[in-house]
């Protein structure tokens, strides 16, 4: 639009702008159409998306750490190459998501600064340590399995760039889950010590994986009401497609038969098939642990953030050198012209 016009050119300039935005945006949402970057949208929709995409991107890059911890100690060259590819994928997923978030007018450096300052969160699953090689298997099978369950519906998210990034991510995640299952499958059929190692990893990762779906939508705890209204709003906006508890149930139903196949036990004495519901019943999740770890008091919170900051600071000279090189060549190019 050129700046020379005098009179109003379109409705946005003559009517209450917020109302026009709401009507146009609401119309697209009602028709299950995608919202694209330069569309007018309510500020709260934009803020929710930026926060969610940033948190999602942060989770991908922080998630590189627990598994990266085992790259040098992978038991074979094959496993090492696979693990490197997987950790590289996590970096890639982080970049797809930062790129999608930037279409809403925020800057990646701004989001990273918030992560480093502890002002934006990442998934609290990555605050648990990877104590043995079997943890790499358990992360792939359970953590990536839960992530896929959460992420597949996001491929239909109302915000176009987020949905498109999720399509790529989900395609790549399925390799992650299968390689994790394969690690446990191998260990479970190995020596007694290897089987025990696999079982121990599953014992430690099962409950945190269930927490990945977030607090109950109909919670009785203090945060329940907030969660419920947040879920409701996100569903109305087409950002979220299913309630936390529904996805969690789907994950349990999917995982129980897989655990049986592996010959490993899921550490929940209350796990039993409910003929009546047609689903697996499972025990009470320790939400106090969830809030505690989310609040910063998990086994590895401080370590993860410190490592992330250190990597960023120690990489500064590379970024500066590349920028200086680019500036020098740009100047030379101008001189020649």
């Amino acid at each position, binding site marked *: 639009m050129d700046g020379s016009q005098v009179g109003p050119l*379109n409705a*946005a300039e003559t009517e209450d702008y917020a109302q026009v935005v709401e009507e146009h945006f609401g119309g697209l949402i009602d028709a299950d159409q995608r919202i*694209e970057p330069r569309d007018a949208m309510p500020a709260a929709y934009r803020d929710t998306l930026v926060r969610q995409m940033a948190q999602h991107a942060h989770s991908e890059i922080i998630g590189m750490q627990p598994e990266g911890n085992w790259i040098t100690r992978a038991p074979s060259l094959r496993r090492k190459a696979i693990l490197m590819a997987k950790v590289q994928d996590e970096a890639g997923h982080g970049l797809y998501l930062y790129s*999608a978030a930037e279409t809403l007018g925020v*800057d*990646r450096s701004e989001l990273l600064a918030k992560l480093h300052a502890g002002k934006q969160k990442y998934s609290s699953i990555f605050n648990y340590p990877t104590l043995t090689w079997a943890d790499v298997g358990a992360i792939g099978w359970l953590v990536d399995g839960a992530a896929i369950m959460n992420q597949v519906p996001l491929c239909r998210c109302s915000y176009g760039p987020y949905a498109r990034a999720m399509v790529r991510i989900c395609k790549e995640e399925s390799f992650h889950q299968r390689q994790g299952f394969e690690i446990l499958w191998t260990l479970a059929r190995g020596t007694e010590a290897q089987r025990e190692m696999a079982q121990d990893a599953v014992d430690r990762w099962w409950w945190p994986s269930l927490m990945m779906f977030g607090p109950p939508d109909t919670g009785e705890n203090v945060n329940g009401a907030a969660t419920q209204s947040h879920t409701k709003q996100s569903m109305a906006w087409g950002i979220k497609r299913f309630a936390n508890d529904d996805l969690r149930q789907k994950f349990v139903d999917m995982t129980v038969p897989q655990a049986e196949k592996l010959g490993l036990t899921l550490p929940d004495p209350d796990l039993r098939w409910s003929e009546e519901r047609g689903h697996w019943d499972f025990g009470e999740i320790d939400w106090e642990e969830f809030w505690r770890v989310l609040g910063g008091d998990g086994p590895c919170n401080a370590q993860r953030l410190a490592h992330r900051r250190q990597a960023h600071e120690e990489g500064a000279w590379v*970024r*500066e050198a*590349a920028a200086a090189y*680019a500036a020098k060549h740009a100047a030379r190019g101008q001189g020649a012209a």
Partner: protein
Amino acid sequence: MSGTGEWPLFEVFVRGKRGLSHTHVGSLHAPDATMALRNARDLYTRRQEGVSIWVVPSGVITASSPEERDSFFDPAGDKVYRHPTFYEVPEDVEYL
């Protein structure tokens, strides 16, 4: 380059295979176009998703404005006669 020292943004377009056009796949930051191309290879073609990549500085793209979309695209709205289905022809005419 912005004051924060952040590398500029490039939009990435990938040709999936010969015979297809380049398609927008996302964006990335890089210090210059050469590095943007390398980063795009590592970021968007880790599984052989492309045979050719374009990178374009995001700042040089001129885009139509969503606010103007109605008036901007209006001229084509009342020209259904541009479509072959607009024309009524006898059913028994072949190759038409």
